[in-house]
């Protein structure tokens, strides 16, 4: 075990970095679905938007100002995009998931194609901000500093989201809305506000994740569907609407993706599918998904 860990330490740490990034993306997707019963396939497009904002402001010449500015701007764009998506899907609430999927797919195509028109087809590389672009020794191996920082940021965000959803009055309202929307409305709460709020918050996280993931993934056409698929797999494994499930699912998929790529490079896709199949056979509703409402 010790020797195996030595050889694959970089892969394991990479898996954590990808896992926490995926958590930031997937938790929004999961809450939006759990709360509003909306399958938001535009989530990947919001991530891509964040990635291009990061590339535009901090791509060529990485600086802290550009990086933080990109974070702030992408957060605002994410909030606005989430609000718009919430308004667009509102009339479709009573219709099938297929209609929601089509609508958000259309939004994805428009956003992705507009980004291609503005920034071109070529992948854009994004550097880490100064001071974080080097490597540090980790147990004898050198490892990119930025990814370690990303793990830290991801962990802090995960704890924050968990505390907000689990321990605050607002979080209780959100969970209650997930469990029984109509009952919350009957208690006199305007759950439209909660709906817009969660949609905007989830999209903001996705856009911020796009900037944070820049130094790893860059910004390129097609990244939106790659990230969307990984996030969907995370959500399916973790269970819809569950924060804890999203975290566990993201960490599992991060490891599967990272180790799969280093250990079995030819069949990495199948490893991912295998993990998904295994979980669904054992727990058809995901690890933390339940029939009655949704736990955090």
């Amino acid at each position, binding site marked *: 075990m010790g020797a195996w860990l030595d050889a694959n330490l970089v892969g394991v740490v990479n898996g954590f970095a990808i896992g926490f990034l995926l958590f930031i993306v997937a938790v929004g997707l999961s809450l939006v*679905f759990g709360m509003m019963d909306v*399958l938001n*396939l535009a989530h990947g497009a919001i991530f891509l938007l964040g990635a291009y904002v990061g590339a535009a402001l901090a791509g060529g010449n990485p600086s802290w100002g550009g990086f933080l500015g990109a974070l702030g701007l992408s957060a605002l764009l994410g909030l606005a995009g989430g609000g718009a998506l919430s308004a*667009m899907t509102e*009339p*479709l609430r009573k*219709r*099938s*998931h*297929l*209609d929601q*999927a*089509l*609508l958000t*797919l*259309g*939004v*994805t*195509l*428009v956003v*992705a*194609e*507009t980004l*291609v*028109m503005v920034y071109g087809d070529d992948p854009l590389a994004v550097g880490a901000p100064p001071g974080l672009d080097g490597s540090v020794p980790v147990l004898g191996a050198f490892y990119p500093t930025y990814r370690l920082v990303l793990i830290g940021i991801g962990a802090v965000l995960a704890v924050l989201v968990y505390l907000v959803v689990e321990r605050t009055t607002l979080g209780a309202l959100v969970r209650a809305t997930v469990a029984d929307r109509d009952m919350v409305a009957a208690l006199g709460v305007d759950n439209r506000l909660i709906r817009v709020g969660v949609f905007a918050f989830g999209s903001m996280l996705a856009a911020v994740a796009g900037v944070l993931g820049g130094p790893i993934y860059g910004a390129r056409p097609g990244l939106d*569907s*790659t990230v969307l*698929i990984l996030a*969907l*797999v995370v*959500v*399916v494994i973790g269970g*819809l609407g569950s924060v804890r499930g999203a975290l566990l699912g993201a960490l599992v998929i991060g490891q599967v993706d990272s180790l799969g790529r280093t250990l079995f490079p*030819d069949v*990495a*896709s*199948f490893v*991912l*599918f295998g993990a*998904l*199949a295994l979980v*669904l*056979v054992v727990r*058809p*509703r995901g690890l933390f998904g339940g029939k009655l409402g949704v736990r955090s």
Partner: protein
Amino acid sequence: MTPAAPQPQRWAKPGVVAVVLVVLASAPLFLAPFATSTVSRILVFGLLAVSLDLLVGISGLPSLGHAAYFGVGAYAAGWVSINVTSAIPVPLLVGAVAGALGAALTGWITVRAHGVFFLMLTLAIGELLHQLAHTWEPVTGGANGMAGIPPARVGDQPLVVSGYVHWYVLAAFAVGVAVVLVVSRSPFGLALRGIRDNEPRMRALGYPTRVYKYAVFVFAGSIAGMAGALLAAQQRLVTPADVGFATAALALLAVVIGGVGTLWGPVIGAALVILIRDAIGPGLDGHGTLVLGLVFIAVVYVLPRGFGGLVSRRHR
């Protein structure tokens, strides 16, 4: 629904079908080669859309990854054409079998899922096969695609002229659609509609619903694989994009524009999608995708039941 619903103009339908077939068959006689090949592409994509409608409209299984089996069929047919023989109907059959096999290997897990999980799972599987097409370079040619597929042959005669290719595509299209129609009107098809409308009741009536869903998933996969084989013969090039999410989404758009569950509507939807992508798109610097995205959004709000919904609400 009652099978004996009144159909006043019984003679009209075969008449319309015959006229449409004659018009399609005579396309090469009065259209330029490029326009003819556009019509062929519409037929290829239309067959994919019809097979998807069998899942979405008839069986209530909205798949976002149906292009995967289309792609599997296309790659398999291309491989056979390059390495073994391109004599009709070998690639077509190989494509159908490969599509069915792909659907059989992945379908056992998707049909266990319901509702939104089905959407997500099919999406994930489609994307995984898309990545496989990218990474399995020795067979698929990676990102460059599988090039150099020889023309389909009748005996020793290669079909090079676009008109002959068109007739081949049209014939296979007609066979494929006819098979789908027969299946959808069989007792099996009626049971599928029952499962779509009320699965618990069908199970209570003793139907093994999961087996039925698996069977139709595999069958639709084989028709999609057949369409893929036609793509390989018509385009003579298969790229990972043909397997991907975008193709699956466009097929779904074709189904929804045309009218879910009508089976003929998706062909019209396919025509619209291909015309926007191949005829209007190049005029916009290749940004037809943008137009398609806007069409997606518009259709959801304005035409939720598609053109088929405008014409008839009866035969669903």
